[in-house]
């Protein structure tokens, strides 16, 4: 197949576009189309596609424009909310990271200070846990018999663990509700 553009192509297109084909166009154009294969193809294909467009357009199931307008609004609002929430999430991550670093540094300094006096990790941990109630003056809340035993320290640890667990559950529930 050789590509050869007909010089009358634009004229024929114009006649078709205006709906003048075949009865309202100049006789010379009709005569040209009769003898030109490219223009015959153009007329045939244009007529076929135009009638198909008319038939298909009539079959379209069109929704109300209001629904689409509302959906576009909704999508835009969600995008705006996401845009607002993004810096907040960033701030939360930053705060958590700072907390983690601070806690690690605190623990590291505590270990450095106390490690010289104790021979092993376990004994250091035990003594640190034993000191905890006294640090927070919590021994006054316990019976006298339990004040000097190791049970007090483990009770404090269990309370801290419970508080952490409870706050995690609360945070999860709160974010889930939002």
């Amino acid at each position, binding site marked *: 197949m050789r590509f050869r553009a007909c010089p009358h192509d634009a004229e024929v297109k114009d006649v078709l576009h205006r709906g003048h084909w075949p009865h309202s166009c100049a006789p010379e154009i009709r005569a040209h189309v009769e003898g030109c294969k490219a223009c015959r193809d153009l007329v045939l294909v244009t007529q*076929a596609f135009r009638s198909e467009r008319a038939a298909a357009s009539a079959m379209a199931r069109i929704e109300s424009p209001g629904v689409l307008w509302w959906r576009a609004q909704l999508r*835009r609002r969600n995008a705006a909310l996401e845009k607002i929430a993004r810096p907040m999430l960033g701030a939360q991550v930053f705060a958590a990271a700072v907390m983690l670093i601070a806690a690690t540094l605190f623990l590291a300094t505590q270990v450095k200070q106390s490690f010289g006096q104790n021979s092993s990790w376990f004994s250091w941990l035990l003594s640190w846990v034993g000191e905890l109630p006294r640090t927070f003056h919590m021994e006054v809340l316990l019976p006298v018999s339990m004040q000097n035993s190791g049970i007090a320290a483990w009770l404090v640890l269990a309370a801290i663990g419970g508080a952490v667990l409870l706050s995690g559950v609360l945070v999860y529930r709160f974010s889930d509700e939002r």
Partner: protein
Amino acid sequence: MPLESAISTVLAGEALPLACTHMQNDAFAGFYERSARPLWAYLARVSGDPALADDLLQESYIRFLGADTPDDGEVAARRYLFRIATNLLRDHWRRPRQRSIEEMHEELFAAADPSAQSDTRAMLGPVLQAMRPRERQLLWLAYAEGYSHKEIAVITGLASASIRLLLFRARHKAAGLLRQQDFPRQQDVSERSSR
């Protein structure tokens, strides 16, 4: 829209201004009435799937309303809408496998159930099925919608110079298929029966 005003608007539950600012609700309704049917016809005939055309039609308008559309009249807005729809069609075709549109098999583009097309009285149905998706797009935009080569280049993202040749080949192929089907006589019969 600045973030501060977006926050207050969202929290107050007020309507957000759509990006398509020059077109208000009433103007959009008019534009939609005039453009939705031709757009649906384009999507349905090029994809060969009326259900997909329904989905893509809605998505096209939603994206159109959220985008910064050209503010130079309805013709430009309509062209932009067809561009969105063309991109959505291409994305849909690309989704199953990450391949180029030209490399994909013809079966992927056709409707799963051929009877879905027979009920449409589509005279062009068999011809369109025999064409490649890109050819269908070009032919529809050029001969059903009457877009120029330059406009088709904008809508499809193809180079303007290659449109001329691609369209010539597609037209030659379509004309051959239409003659095989005895198209003009078939059209006469369908017009007479509709009267």
